[in-house]
């Protein structure tokens, strides 16, 4: 921003601005545009909630989500609560709560142990990995090659009520006696496994596809899902993502009936509030950027002179010689230059001719004349090696020539 200068006496000052009111009048349209744009941005920011595209998330309304199921459960009076960290689950009454864990294969060993200690009902969705065996279901997970809608084929009341279900994507193959498999298709892969140890029920729905918005209305999926997940008045829903190391928390876990705090559930070496403090410092860094970015006046232009090295043309010629392997031309130039220097030293001009120079050089250096003649006027060298030899001999000759 450079102001037009006005002279006050001898001093130069910036021109007085047109004043706030005049500026506002002149920039009315601009201000209106800025306000409008700001309002629009604010509306967008407030109105647009971040889309949830996590599969099996209850906030996800795409075909892979489970928002439809969550809404059905809520309509039937089940309090469905999705948590983003396992520690936030804070189950108040394990006897009246279903804990739903999607993608349990991503849980850490500590987290699986906390599930094992948990006294209430558990439902595992999708791939569960090591958690299956830990929770007493003796089955292995295998990919389903032939998706099929099959009848329950077991004694489980929920499965019987549902009637049929589709085995798809992932199925369970029996590996022992632990747990009852339902909806088993021809190749022996089951959609659901359940184990009841008397105090609680652990259900694994490997073919979690059947709970998604896309498949919930097919076969007996809706019945199966609402009966399995809607057994208690509360449902805590957690989609594992492998980034959260915290443990499942519930009332009575610590033995004193209190809910453990998040800090106790997440062993952390940093004091509480570190993250927020860093967040505040990051905001300060934005201000620092503005502080440093504002220049103390504009850069001053520097008209630069042309820069060409005087030896540029000669270097170009040297490259041409090299590319053409011009041994003859290079040798001729160096011979002529050496002859000129030696002639000057012993007082023989260029116009005196070849014989006069050869004789004088031979006398000054004490070498035989044919030798000198060959070095100065001999045939051009055939290759690089011959050129190097000739030049070193020429240098030797030149160093031997002294003023007579």
């Amino acid at each position, binding site marked *: 921003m450079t102001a037009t200068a006005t002279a006050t006496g001898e001093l*130069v000052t910036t021109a007085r601005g047109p004043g706030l009111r005049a500026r506002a009048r002149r920039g009315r349209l601009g201000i209106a545009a800025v306000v409008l744009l700001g309002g629009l941005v604010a509306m967008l920011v407030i109105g647009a909630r971040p889309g949830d595209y996590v599969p099996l998330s209850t906030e996800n309304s795409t075909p892979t989500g489970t928002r439809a199921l969550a809404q059905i459960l809520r309509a039937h009076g089940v309090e469905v609560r999705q948590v983003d960290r396992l520690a936030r689950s804070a189950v108040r009454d394990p006897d009246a709560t279903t804990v739903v864990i999607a993608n349990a294969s991503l849980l850490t060993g500590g987290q699986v142990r906390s599930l094992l200690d948990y006294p209430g009902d558990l439902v595992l969705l999708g791939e569960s990995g090591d958690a299956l065996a830990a929770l007493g279901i003796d089955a292995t997970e295998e990919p389903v090659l032939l998706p099929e809608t099959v009848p329950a084929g077991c004694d489980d009341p929920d499965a019987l009520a549902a009637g049929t279900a589709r085995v798809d994507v992932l199925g369970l193959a029996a590996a022992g006696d632990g747990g009852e498999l339902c909806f088993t298709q021809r190749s022996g892969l089951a959609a659901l496994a359940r184990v009841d140890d008397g105090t609680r029920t652990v259900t694994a729905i490997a073919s979690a596809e059947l709970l998604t918005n896309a498949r919930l209305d097919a076969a007996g999926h809706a019945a199966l899902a609402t009966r399995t997940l809607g057994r208690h008045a509360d449902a805590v829903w957690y989609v594992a993502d492998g980034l959260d190391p915290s443990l499942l928390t519930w009332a009575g876990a610590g033995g004193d009936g209190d809910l453990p705090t998040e800090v106790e559930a997440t062993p952390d070496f940093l004091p509480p509030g570190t993250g927020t403090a860093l967040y505040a410092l990051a905001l300060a860094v934005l201000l620092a950027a503005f502080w440093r970015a504002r220049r103390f006046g504009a850069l001053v232009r520097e008209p630069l*002179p042309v820069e060409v090295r005087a030896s540029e043309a000669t270097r170009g010629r040297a490259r041409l*010689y090299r590319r053409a392997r011009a041994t003859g031309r290079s040798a001729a130039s160096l011979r002529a230059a050496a002859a000129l220097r030696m002639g000057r030293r012993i007082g023989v001009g260029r116009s005196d001719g070849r014989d006069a120079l050869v004789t004088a050089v031979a006398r000054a250096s004490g070498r035989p004349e044919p030798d000198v003649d060959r070095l100065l006027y001999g045939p051009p060298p055939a290759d690089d090696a011959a050129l*190097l030899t000739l*030049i070193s001999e020429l240098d030797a000759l030149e160093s031997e020539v002294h003023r007579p």
Partner: protein
Amino acid sequence: MHVTGWTVALAALGALPAALTQSRTVAWAWVLGVVALALVDTWLAPPTHAVGVRREAPGSVRLSQSATTRLLVANVGRRRVRGAVRDAWQPSAGASGERHAFALAPGETETFRTALTPTRRGDRHAGPVTIRTYGPLRLAGRQRSLEAPARLRVLPEFASRRHLPSRLVRLREIDGRTAVRLKGAGAEFDSLRDYVIGDDVRTIDWRGTARRGEVVVRTYRPERDRRVVIALDSARLSAARVGDAPRLDASIEAALLLAALAAHAGDRVQATAFDRAEQARAASTGSRIVASLADALATVEPSLLEPDWPALVRLVESRVSQRSLVVLLTTVDTSAMDSGLIEAVAALQRRHQVLVGSVEDPELGEMMAGREDADSVYGAGAAARAMLEREAVATRLRQLGAEVVLALPDDLAPAVCDRYLALKAAGRL
């Protein structure tokens, strides 16, 4: 508007309440509060038009020396002003310590000095003066720039002036004005005096001896009041860099030294720099020529044009009517064959004595000595070819009767002066 480091420090302090409450809302509220405070501070800051400035540039300075430019800052408003000014100059002006903080009561003034150590010859221009004023909280303030034009003329370095004393001694020897009595040389008859033992017997004036009855000798002195015309070629070839300066700079050094020497010798010097048209001109009598020549040549920049030699010949002929020494400071290389240099020298040599000075490139010498491998020998061959071509042109010029001086950049000025002294001693001016 600008903010200070205090604003950032204050914003960083927000980490404490944010950590204690563990709330990002608090962090945002703190930072937005700091921003609001900075905006209020800016609004409260004195307007920039309450500050007046005046630049006082030192005029001219020799390259490699330092100058001080002064910036007067005055508070012309009704409130106390706390702020800072930046006295911006273009980078090659070599300004250091160009930022100054001030706190002025109404009507008060303060003068700041900025040291300038220019790195290039020519006119160095000042940039805008930027004024910052701070608000009462020192968190932020207003900023405006204003044009306050100033110029610093950077004269040629004239590093070759260290050669001047030794050349003046030589000049006095030729003149016969040395403290030890040495025979004066020159071509112009000065006076007759009695023979003393040691005088050259060839200088005995027999007619005077016969008339007086005692042996008398003639004394000579070098010619005085000769015309010296220095022409600097500022065309395409003078732009090429030799070492770390363009050829033109070596020519300027030579011109300055020669002008200083010739002025001491009592000759009349005029100089011109030209490419297709005259770029600079200096002519004055006595020792003032050096100052006026330095000032005139300070702003000459090499142009990327082919020199117009016939125009130079016409220019010289129109400036001098008597026989003069015409010193052409140019580049002797193979392009001289068809650029018209040889014809121009021939035309000038008919009525004047021409001295051609040319800068040699030390890199060519290094290339010519290259013997490490085949590649460097090809380089040596190319350099030898360039040298031979240059020698051919120089020989052609010598055949026309011109004097030719080929020297490395640092040696050109003394070499041209030596040749001038030799010509003077031989009475060829």
